[in-house]
């Protein structure tokens, strides 16, 4: 390539301007960011425990009906050590993974189909949103009859609870892909399947992620409802542990199990989806560099 003096000068000018305009990298360390997001959560947790203990101290209810944090966490520790809770978590999370996996496949397929086929959109577009508002517990009577109260009845309700949210997230994402990016993709030669693979689906991902997160919340609720309603012999799930504790009037164990349910919900939401969300936001440049 030509190397004339004025070319060299242009190179230097461009490089200098680029250096001025390029954004400075973020300086805060990972550990500090982790701590700054952790301590408010710990503080809130401590406050909740304190409030709970204060209510117990007022003797609003006898302590065998409403035990304090102490007995509840002792019961939790006992169930963890004896292996009851770990086994129950295994059973429940296996159902959650299968149900959510199915919902992911079905929801994504429906989302793409509705986005691509106008007749389908006219036919079931609003139905998907409608299904999302339907409390999933209302599906159980039908599901129990359809599947004789077996494992499949629970899965059915988990899928039908989560899939509409996932489909809707993907559909919204596809609808909101900036036309500029679609055009740029066509100019680059991405058409048909390639347009979906390389442009439309990646561009729809942030909204899809919102749908996945919401889908998880629905799946988790449906699963807990299902495990309380559909008791399957030999399958000692979290729901079964909770139900048995109720039958024995063991308030401490009920609360201990509820803590486990809450904890799993939070962990999946903040660890799995939180990490994905942060990664997308920083890749796309959606975070304010000063705030993160």
């Amino acid at each position, binding site marked *: *390539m*030509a190397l*004339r003096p*004025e*070319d060299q000068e*242009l*190179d230097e*000018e*461009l*490089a200098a*301007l*680029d250096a001025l*305009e*390029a*954004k400075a990298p973020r300086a805060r360390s990972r550990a500090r960011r982790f701590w700054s997001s952790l301590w408010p959560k710990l503080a809130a947790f401590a406050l909740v425990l304190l409030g709970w203990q204060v209510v117990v101290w007022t003797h609003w209810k006898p302590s065998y009906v409403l035990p304090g944090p102490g007995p509840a966490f002792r019961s939790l520790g006992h169930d963890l050590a004896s292996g009851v809770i770990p086994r129950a978590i295994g059973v429940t999370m296996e159902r959650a993974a299968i149900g959510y996996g199915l919902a992911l496949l079905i929801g994504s397929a429906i989302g793409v189909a509705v986005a691509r086929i106008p007749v389908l959109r006219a036919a079931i577009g609003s139905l998907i949103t409608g299904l999302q508002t339907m409390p999933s517990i209302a599906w159980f009577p039908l599901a129990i009859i359809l599947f004789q109260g077996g494992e499949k009845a629970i899965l059915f309700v988990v899928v039908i609870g989560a899939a509409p949210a996932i489909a809707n997230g993907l559909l919204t994402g596809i609808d909101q892909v900036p036309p*500029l*990016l679609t*055009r*740029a993709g*066509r*100019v*680059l*030669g*991405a058409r048909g399947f*390639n347009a979906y693979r*390389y*442009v439309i689906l*990646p*561009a729809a*991902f942030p909204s899809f992620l919102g749908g996945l997160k919401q889908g998880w919340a629905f799946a988790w609720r449906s699963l807990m409802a299902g495990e309380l309603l559909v008791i399957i012999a030999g399958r000692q799930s979290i729901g079964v542990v909770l139900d048995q504790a109720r039958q024995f009037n063991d308030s401490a164990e009920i609360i201990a199990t509820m803590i486990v349910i809450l904890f799993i919900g939070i962990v999946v939401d903040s660890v799995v989806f939180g990490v994905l969300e942060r990664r*997308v936001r920083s*890749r*796309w*440049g959606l975070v304010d560099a000063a705030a993160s």
Partner: protein
Amino acid sequence: MILKPRPDVSLEPALHPGAGSAVSLSSVSKVYGTESGAVHALEDVSIEVGYGEFLCLVGASGCGKSTMLNLIAGLDKPSTGSVEVRGGRPTLIFQESALFPWLTVEQNIELALKLRKIGRADREPVIESLLKMVNLSGFGKKRPHELSGGMRQRVSIARALAQQAEILLMDEPFGALDAMTRDLLHDEVERLWRDTGFSIVFVTHNVREAVRLADRVILLSSRPGRVVAEFPVDIKRPRRVESPEVGTLATEITARLREEVKHHGSSP
């Protein structure tokens, strides 16, 4: 080598108009919508773009310039008339850089190669040489949002070159940039054009920019878009946007443009 250097490319302004047409628009009209609400974007437009010519299209809003670029790029079909593209593959560069935000700079360029079915092993050297061409070596791992507007446009240009396009259609590519950056990018585009011998159709609102860059400036009317006048630019390169010769011709074209806009305003 993907970017084959053309044997006939010299350091002087490459191929001159008259050496044949890379793009021909013959009596092209484009109407959007149906009879009642029809919008005539283009009416009876005939334009020839020579091989290696740098052509600028200037016009007020509604002159159908984006429509014209879409037609040449093959993203749209004319209502009547014909569009012929002979001088290689056309590609569009948009006003805002249309880089994919989920990909790094390198990956954006790589996608163009991937879609041309270039093997994985062959991509890397091409990406490197393209980044070098637009003076962005070392920025390959950055994400688009980490770059300035001018840098993003240069990545867009690199990505367009990765398509092995030989006709660059540029839709107000520097409209959103500050004057300093724009000035440098004028130099850069001119150098790229000189070194590659591409044909360029460059749309702009900025008459001075057009005179600074073009071999020929075509003035378009608005609603419908028609060719009003043609101005060959016989000013020696390299040019400066602030030079008196550029100023004189720009003043002449601007006067004609204002006349056109006024005329449009007075007609019903």
